[in-house]
Each structure stands twice: as C-alpha cells, then as structure tokens.
C-alpha cells in the first residue's frame, strides 16, 4: 500500500504536466477545467463545424441542429470537471455529441408515437397527417445537385448506429479505435458497422459508383436499378 501511495504522490498527475504536443486540445481542456474561458472559446471555434456537421447529419433538422450543437459545448463546459487528461479531447467531445443526438432522436420518436395515439377531435374524419421523416428535404443551399441529394438520402436512411459510424469515419482526426470509443463498442463491431453501412450505401448509390469517380449516371442505368 505504501508503494501505491508513493507512486501516486510522485506521479505526474497534475494539470501542469500534460505535454502539449501529444494532444493540444487536451491542454486547452485542462485550462477550461480551471475556468479559462479563452481556452474554451478556442475549442468551440475549432470544433463547431465538425460538431455541427455531425449533429445535422444525425438528426436532419437544420433548425434544431445549431441549438443541439450549442448544447454539446454547453455540456462540455458543465462536465469539464470530469475530463481526464489521459483522454483524447475530440473522442470525449464526439461522445457527448453522440449522446445528445441519440437522446434527441429518441425524444422525437416518442413524441411522434404519442401524437399518433392522441384522440382525434370530433370533426376529424381522416387520420392526422404527419411529415414523412424518411424523405427529408434539406435546405436547398446545402445541395449542389442531384448527386449530393442522393447521398444525403442514402445516409439518412441508414440505421442510426451505422449512420453515426459512417459520419465519424469522415473525421480524419479519429482513428478506428477512437470511433469505437465514441460508439461504445468493440473495434471489430465498429468496423462491422462501417462495412455494413458502406455496403448499403454502395447498393443504393450503385448507378453513381460505376467508375472510380463520382459522376452523373445516364438514364438507362437509373431505370435498370
């Protein structure tokens, strides 16, 4: 026991000891833990775009995406005392984003099922109409053409865990180990998720993936699919 105590007392477990070249974001986060708002602002500026992308492509709601993305950073700030210097900051951040996205998706599905069960008003003769969430029309400013729309549609149709895996795979700063940590599953399960998602996307986007480059298929290929 004395040895363990001496090891703790002599260990480098101090917020001052983390080398900046290993993970500069971790250094910033440790400053955030001590109330440094400038460090927090720097992290928000750096990660607002990737977090916003992830949140938007997960919940497919431009109006709510920015609010939810802000909530991610609010949660980062509130949970700063729990951040461990050994953890990679981006992994921790995306884990928070994942949890908030999944909570929002669950909340929406519960809200939708409650609405379906609500008693109809006396004058209502037909079933209430609900927006078809599977056919999503993102804002036109986001789409550069039919091809992007097809990709958007195909990604949106994936199960949420596969969708998340594919979106995280786009983040070049995340290794497969990091992705598995964010998803909360093993490395092999993570790779399996990515593989299945890509197989589904390849099937759905087959006419557009004939050659090695992304291109507009001719009409015969579209109708033969």
């Amino acid at each position, binding site marked *: 026991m004395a040895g363990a*105590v001496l090891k703790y007392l002599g260990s480098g477990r101090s917020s*001052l000891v983390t080398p900046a070249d290993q993970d500069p974001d971790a250094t910033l986060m440790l400053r955030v833990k001590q109330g440094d*708002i400038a460090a927090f602002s720097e992290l928000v500026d750096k990660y607002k775009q990737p977090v916003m*992308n992830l949140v938007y492509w997960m919940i497919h709601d431009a109006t709510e995406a920015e609010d939810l993305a802000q909530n991610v950073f609010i949660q980062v*700030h509130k949970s700063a005392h729990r951040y461990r210097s050994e953890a990679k900051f981006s992994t921790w951040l995306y884990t928070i984003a994942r949890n908030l996205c999944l909570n929002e998706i669950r909340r929406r599905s519960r809200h939708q099922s409650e609405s379906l069960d609500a008693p109809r008003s006396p004058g209502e003769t037909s079933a209430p109409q609900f927006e078809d969430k599977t056919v999503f029309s993102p804002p036109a400013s986001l789409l550069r053409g039919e091809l992007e729309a097809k990709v958007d549609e195909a990604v949106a149709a994936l199960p949420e865990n596969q969708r998340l895996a594919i979106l995280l795979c786009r983040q070049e700063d995340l290794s497969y180990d990091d992705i598995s940590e964010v998803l909360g599953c093993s490395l092999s399960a993570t790779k399996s998720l990515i593989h299945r998602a890509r197989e589904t996307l*390849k099937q759905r986007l087959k006419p557009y993936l004939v050659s090695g480059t992304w291109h507009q298929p001719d009409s015969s290929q579209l109708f033969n699919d």
Partner: protein
Amino acid sequence: MHDPDYHKFLELNWRAKRSEAEEMELRQWLADHPEMEADRDREAALTQALGHLPDVEVSSNFTARVLSRTAALRPGQLSPRPTLWTQLWRPLLRRAALALVLVVAGIFGFQRHEVDSRARLGRNIAAFSSVAAEPGADVLQDFEAIRRLDQMPRPDEQLLALLK
C-alpha cells in the same frame, strides 16, 4: 470474403487520406489482386461521395452564443486565467494533506499496537500470579522426624496375628 488482407484493403479505402505507407500497401495489394480493381473503384467513389457531403452552415455568432449561455448557467466560471495559487500550490497542498493523513494514521496505528501489547503483558502477569504460592518455611519444622519414619523397623506381623 473472409481474407483478413481483404478487410485490411477495405479499411484502407474507407479513409480519404492515407499515409504514404498505407498508400504503398494498397497499391501492392491491388498489384497482387488485379481482380479487385473494380471493388476498389467503387470504394473510392463512395469515399469521395461521402467526402462531398457539404459542410453545414454555422452562424457567425455561434461561439458568442455558446459563451453567453455558459455564462448564464455558471457565472462563477468567468474567472481570469488561473493564478499561481491554483496552478501550483493547490495541487501541492492536496498531496501534503494526503501525506499528513497517512502519517497520522500510522502514528495512531502504532500507538494502538503499543497499548495492545501492554494489555497482553498485563494479562500474562496476572495469570502467572494466580498460581498457588509456595508453602511457608514452618511446614519443614518436623521434616527430619518424618523422614526417619521410613527408616524405622517393620512391625512383627506373626506376633500380632498370635495376639489376636
């Protein structure tokens, strides 16, 4: 296909950016498996397509709004940069406090051990003293007479029997 090299080949194609070593590994694999060229093309096209998903527009005051909401939740967090006290002395004091607690616990434990040892010694002495005391010197007064009793002649048992 359950070939582990094939899975490795797929994983290399999943990422848009590869290191030089990974790029060489992929080229070598394709050279060894030319029949996989079409697969590789489809994987590359899909990776490219996913990479073309546009960035979502972020409002210009996003960071300001986050900071504002954070400040509203926890106004005490708006402190200036940490001082020497928070950076240096507080962690040292924490460790010193822990060391002090351990030392006090050690002293307390040692004293307890001393008390227990003395109590055990006292009990042993009490048990020893309860043993019956040695007889006094007066019991040795007729010691010589008693000792000679064993040396006296034995009685005539035949005479005793006739007298009966």
